[in-house]
């Protein structure tokens, strides 16, 4: 990543290229899904108009989309960051629950703090709890050689069940009838940017975090070393990089980022913790991360795309009655078509080989 004007230009061209590519992919995916919509007896044009309006129709819609983008940026970052260290973190979902749990505890039971301090404490707690949960997988990897894919999948279930236990008993809102905690104190809530849409400053924190992670990865020695561990453990070891410590560290930071997804969701929008409060942000994070090519800036756009489709789909359901499951299909096909961009190259190569 050089900084000269030339480099900026090539980067700009790259961005433009991948943007137009993504747009084409989305178009094609919508075309394919249109067939399904027709099959279900609806008019695709009306459906898509609703989708578009739901995602971008007015400031209210855009606010919703951005609010939805926020946690996805964090989970996407979490997966992407770990992957830069060659670790596949399938456990963002569990780490998110850990983060939410810690933040809600701080938000409810710590009182008497001024707003900024309380918020920062809640954020720190969320990051720390997520980092602990991710770090646990990192520890198992570095100490016992346990593949992080296995451990994170298992830890997901453990975290989700544990949160369920906590909200129904130990930290349930008195008298303890409902499966939910009390609301976090107003001092622990993120300020709202756009009053009508409930968009909090969480989005700014998320984008800031992405930029920070990009900086960390490409402009700091720590980042270079981390990426070295990711690409060649041997070379890393011989360059004096403590590989195990880095893996542990990467998993912890990754977990922390995922934990922040839980934090912003709690102190930025839901205010209280219920079991199953996450609609799978952690799993979406996997797709978001790789769609963004494990690049923090790419993650922002991928998260936005995911959020827009989801928010738009809700509107589509509300106005046309189409089930939202359709949007999962659209999301999936969008991804496949983006991946399918390689098809032209593949086809050309094949023709060449046939010709030769």
């Amino acid at each position, binding site marked *: *990543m*050089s*900084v000269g004007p030339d480099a900026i230009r090539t980067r700009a061209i790259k961005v433009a290229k991948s943007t137009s590519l993504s747009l084409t992919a989305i178009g094609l995916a919508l075309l394919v899904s249109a067939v399904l919509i027709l099959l279900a007896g609806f008019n695709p044009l009306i459906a898509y108009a609703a989708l578009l309006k739901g995602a971008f129709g007015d400031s209210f819609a855009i606010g919703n989309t951005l609010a939805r983008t926020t946690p996805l940026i964090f989970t996407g970052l979490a997966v992407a960051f770990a992957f830069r260290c060659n670790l596949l973190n399938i456990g963002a979902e569990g780490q998110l629950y850990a983060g939410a749990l810690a933040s809600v505890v701080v938000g409810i039971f710590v009182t008497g703090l001024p707003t900024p301090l309380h918020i920062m404490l809640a954020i720190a707690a969320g990051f720390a709890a997520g980092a602990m949960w991710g770090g646990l997988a990192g520890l198992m990897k570095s100490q016992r050689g346990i593949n992080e894919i296995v451990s994170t999948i298992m830890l997901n279930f453990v975290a989700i069940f544990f949160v369920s236990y906590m909200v129904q008993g130990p930290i349930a809102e008195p008298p303890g009838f409902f499966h939910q905690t009390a609301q976090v104190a107003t001092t622990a809530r993120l300020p709202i940017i756009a009053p009508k849409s409930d968009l909090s400053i969480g989005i700014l924190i998320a984008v800031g975090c992405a930029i920070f992670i990009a900086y960390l990865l490409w*402009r*700091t*020695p*720590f980042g*270079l*070393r981390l*990426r*070295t561990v990711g*690409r*060649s453990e*041997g*070379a890393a*070891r*011989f*360059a*004096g990089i*403590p590989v195990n410590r880095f893996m542990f560290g990467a998993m912890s930071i990754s977990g922390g980022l995922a934990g922040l997804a839980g934090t912003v969701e709690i102190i930025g929008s839901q205010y209280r913790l219920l079991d199953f409060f996450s609609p799978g942000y952690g799993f979406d994070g996997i797709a978001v991360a790789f769609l963004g090519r494990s690049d923090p800036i790419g993650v922002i756009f991928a998260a936005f795309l995911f959020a827009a489709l989801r928010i738009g789909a809700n509107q589509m359901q509300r106005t046309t009655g189409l089930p939202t499951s359709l949007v999962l299909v659209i999301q999936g096909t969008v991804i496949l078509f983006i991946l399918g961009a390689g098809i032209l190259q593949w086809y050309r190569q094949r023709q060449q*080989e046939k010709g*030769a």
Partner: protein
Amino acid sequence: MSLLRMEEITKRFPGVVANDQVDLVLEEGEIHALLGENGSGKSTLMNMLYGIYRPDAGRILLRDKEVQFSSPTDAISAGIGMVHQHFMLVPTMTVTENVILGLKEQKGRWNPLLDTRGAEKRINALAEQYGLDIEPNARVWQLPVGAQQRVEILKSLYRNAEILVLDEPTAVLAPKEVEHLIEVLRNLARSGKSIIFISHKLNEVIQLADRVSVLRNGVLSGQVDVADATASQLAEMMVGRQVETPKKKPRKSGETILTTANLVVKDDRSLIAVDDLTFDLAKGEIFGVAGVDGNGQKELTEAIAGVRSIESGNLEISGLSKSRGKRFREIGHVTEDRHQTGVVLPFSLWENYALKVCGTPPYGNWLNMNTGVMQEQTRAAIDQFSIKATGPDVAMSTLSGGNQQKVVLARELALDPKLLLAAQPTRGLDVGAAEYVHERLLSARDSGMAIMLISTELEEVLALSDRIMVMYEGKSMGLVDASQASREMLGLMMAGVSLENIENGMSQ
């Protein structure tokens, strides 16, 4: 009728013409050597013969019939076998499995089970016929390189190869193994096989080959009968100038920097690899460690470098910083296995170059790397070491083997370390580049650096070292002053005869 004719072969890669209208003729039963500087296009040419790449232009004729290989399968069925610079073996499989991989070796037409027994028999027969010593049941990752190479040769023979291509087969071998290989190749030629072999070692070429083709910058710069050529002539054909053996200045005495006492180190399989070593190394000295590969040199080096723990005994490096980061910068390490431990292939050259120094002035600090400076330095290294690369931004993976090695060397020397561990520093380098590296090592020594040179090449050890230790099965066979050492003596020690015994024998 020639067995093989490659005519006007051209191959371009983005930014380079790797082969430019190259002609190559191979006769039946001939051993043909292919020489050339690093990056001159040797491997590329051979890869086209083996169907891995396709030529952009030119023809390949086998027994005067034009052939087109779109994959190695075609080449194999046309009777061509290749032993690659980086072995093409599956480490987790056994020798037999590797040999029969992809073949229809099963117990009869209707019984799909593998006929490993039958295959083993044939392997043993072939091994005996050509004098290839091999253990069919061993897993490949457990074998020393020499043995792995024999597996590669067997693989080709098993597939009835008529033409055998070997890409730098001797680069990774110890002198004894080289002799053995040469014997094997002669046997093969005698029994009618034709051989193309790539090497940077001129003496081997002269010893073994019938004819030599020399490539320079992708162009065929000459083809001679070996009978008519001398080593220095060949070297000149390659690099376009006279190549000289380095001159060593007398050594200035310096303070001791490395001391070991009764050092014991274990290998990855928890077997003792370094057994009770005691020696020291001073500033301004090149300390040669000779020995056949796999006699504990690797483990010794790694222990000193701080990436392998010590079992017992003492290892002390004076004046080293407490901090881990600094320590690794104070010890330079040209590692033996370039791909696994030396470089990060998908990274750019400058990132590879910055691996250790990033974060220290003038390369930036812990919060910010000064990428500009690092790129500048890399560019300078490219010029100094005449690395064939278009710039510091290209990926390491696009460089030829020798050029990758140069990047590593440039990086480690740039650290200006207190102690430099140089393991096989010229492995895979052409004579010109090797000469340059030798010069650099000597000048580093003269400016006070302590250097430990680990090499299986006696010439190199003898030419550069001040003192030489020979390792055999983890033990020291003795420590001699380079001025008093001879090839024969070192050879004996490498075979496990201790210095004491040699001296006793001589005195008797």
